[in-house]
């Protein structure tokens, strides 16, 4: 590897290799997950950062501003923290329309209000035309981790249950449809949303959530593989239980993509104690952000680090991490 490829940013195997070989030895990253947990005199803080470079900037269901707030809120939320404050850094290309910037900033303001957090600091840089793709946004976030909350993949145990909070692949499918001028009836909408309200309800229901992650880049498959690898256990999911909208299936069939690897921006995966799962699921289903939540699988003792998908016909296959960008098939 002598040059950075687009796939180094796709959330899959190459990105993990880059983090492990380039960043981890140089930084104090601790556990490689979306948030750092900081022990302070005031209590435990969750701290995270994320950059947003989506194209197109505006899409059905939101825009880059909505994503920039919700994405960071969700990274904090799935660590169990209550999100409090965000920063917003903008890298803007010369010539970018001020009206577009205003629209994006308004979206950020609205998303922050919905999530109940404050954007309290920021930065703006402008680069020459051709040196950026319109606008890039970075948001960092701080949240407070309540006492007794300790969500970590090492806590996953045999017989735990895997729950997903909603439909798979909507955001990635919506973006790909937008990029390629494909329209669907009803339209494909991004699922971007803040998940902190749902997580709050979940944590009120049970403290036995062992793993929680929002499956963004790399999709559900990569997140499950991370959980299996970190726990040293096996995760088995049932294809028939996966909530996937028809439009998402249609786009995936059309382009030869696997919905399990498509990015999501408004769902989470939780691995929980089996006896808590029915009550938790019921609670999630009653919440608007979890109305399509479903139990999709279970944790098995072996084979270690493996994710198995059982197909509708009863066949079995191994789920691996995304290795490269998913690209459309030739035929």
């Amino acid at each position: 590897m002598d040059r950075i490829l687009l796939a180094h940013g796709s959330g899959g195997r190459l990105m993990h290799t880059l983090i492990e070989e380039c960043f981890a030895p140089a930084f104090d990253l601790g556990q490689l997950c979306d948030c750092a947990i900081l022990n302070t005199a005031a209590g435990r803080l969750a701290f995270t950062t994320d950059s947003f470079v989506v194209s197109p900037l505006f899409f059905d269901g939101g825009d880059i501003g909505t994503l920039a707030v919700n994405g960071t809120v969700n990274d904090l939320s799935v660590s169990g923290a209550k999100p409090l404050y965000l920063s917003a850094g903008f890298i803007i290309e010369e010539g970018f329309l001020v009206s577009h910037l205003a629209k994006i900033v308004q979206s950020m303001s609205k998303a922050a209000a919905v999530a109940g957090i404050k954007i309290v600091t920021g930065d703006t840089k402008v680069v020459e035309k051709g040196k950026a793709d319109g606008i890039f946004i970075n948001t960092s976030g701080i949240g407070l981790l309540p006492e007794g909350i300790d969500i970590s993949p090492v806590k996953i145990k045999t017989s735990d249950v895997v729950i997903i909070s909603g439909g798979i692949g909507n955001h990635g499918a919506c973006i790909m449809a937008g990029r390629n001028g494909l329209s669907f009836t009803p339209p494909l909408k991004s699922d971007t949303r803040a998940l902190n309200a749902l997580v709050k309800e979940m944590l009120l229901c049970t403290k036995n959530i062992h793993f929680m992650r929002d499956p963004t880049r790399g999709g559900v498959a990569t997140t499950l593989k991370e959980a299996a690898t970190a726990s040293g256990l096996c995760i088995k999911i049932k294809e028939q239980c996966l909530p996937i909208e028809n439009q998402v299936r249609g786009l995936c069939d059309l382009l030869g993509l696997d919905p399990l690897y498509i990015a999501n921006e408004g769902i989470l995966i939780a691995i929980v104690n089996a006896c808590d799962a029915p009550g938790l699921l019921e609670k999630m289903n009653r919440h608007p952000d979890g109305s399509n939540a479903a139990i999709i699988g279970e944790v098995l003792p072996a084979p270690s680090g493996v994710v198995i998908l059982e197909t509708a016909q009863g066949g079995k296959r191994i789920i691996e991490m995304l290795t490269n960008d998913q690209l459309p098939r030739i035929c």
Partner: protein
Amino acid sequence: MNGFVKLIHDITPPKHLKLMEVCGTHTVSIFRGGIKSLLPKEITLISGPGCPVCVTSVKDIDAAISLSMTPGVILVTFGDMMHVPGGDRMSLYKAKAQGACTEVVYCPLDALKIATDNGSSKVVFFATGFETTSPSIAATIEEAGDRGIGNFYVYSSHKLVPPALSALMSSPAVDIDGFILPGHVSAIIGKEPYEFLASDYAKPGVITGFSTDDILMGIYMLLLQISDKKAEIQIQYTKVVRPEGNPKAISKIHKYFDVSDTYWRGIGQIPQSGLILKDEYSQCDAKKRFSIEIDHCNPESNACMCGDVLRGLKSPPECALFGKGCKPENPVGACMVSSEGSCAAYYRYGGAADG
């Protein structure tokens, strides 16, 4: 148990059977559907040479990379072609990271929009694929001519499926009991081009769709033929494939392309198995209009067993490079380069799981 799975288990094969899925999309569907884990142990599915990305020659990949790095050229292709390694493991994807100008499209006609939006550039479509994609390339050349788009060129690396099957069957080492034949290709060419499998080699074939149930039904139809000692070409994928195929699409191919000998990566030269642009369309033939600097040696790795995998003689894990020196993120051989390649599908979906 699924209905077709039960029917398959109820037929006791007279011996251990090897069935070949010719098409790369079938390979992926078989792995995605966990189909191998549903079949009796007496049935082995073997992946054939039907991934057009995998069999594109190193020379053609290198030519495409060279074109993409030529100032003033925009190279346009299908997504799958981006990761295919040419000589020295360079790919269009890696070339892009070095400043090469490449665009991925879903439909060849999108290349014409790129050509009209970039009038001062030369837009070259790197055209790969089998009979499924060649009619759309022909239609794009026609549209470019009708609209007077003079900065659109085609580098044809198209290949034909039946000659490859013929070459496969003429090899004494190959031992296949029946063929799961490609659905999309057959939608264009119909069933007649495969009849030689039944008449000359007494091998049954079933033109099959791509869902798990389609494939299971296709396998069941093959088993029925084998158990009845029949050898016919049948169509399971009747909702898409007509026996005569699509005569309009076939005539479009013949209008713009001549058949020629061509080199298949991992297999070698196969007579009359490629498509080149006819002389009267040489004004948009990138091979004739551009001076392409490439090394003509064949840099395929000696350790790579893709040739044997593509002919059904070896399964991917039998190759010493599989999963070690050869992975989807940095492939060596033809079968690891595309998501449809049998090694890539094997690597990604891991075959049948015990769970």
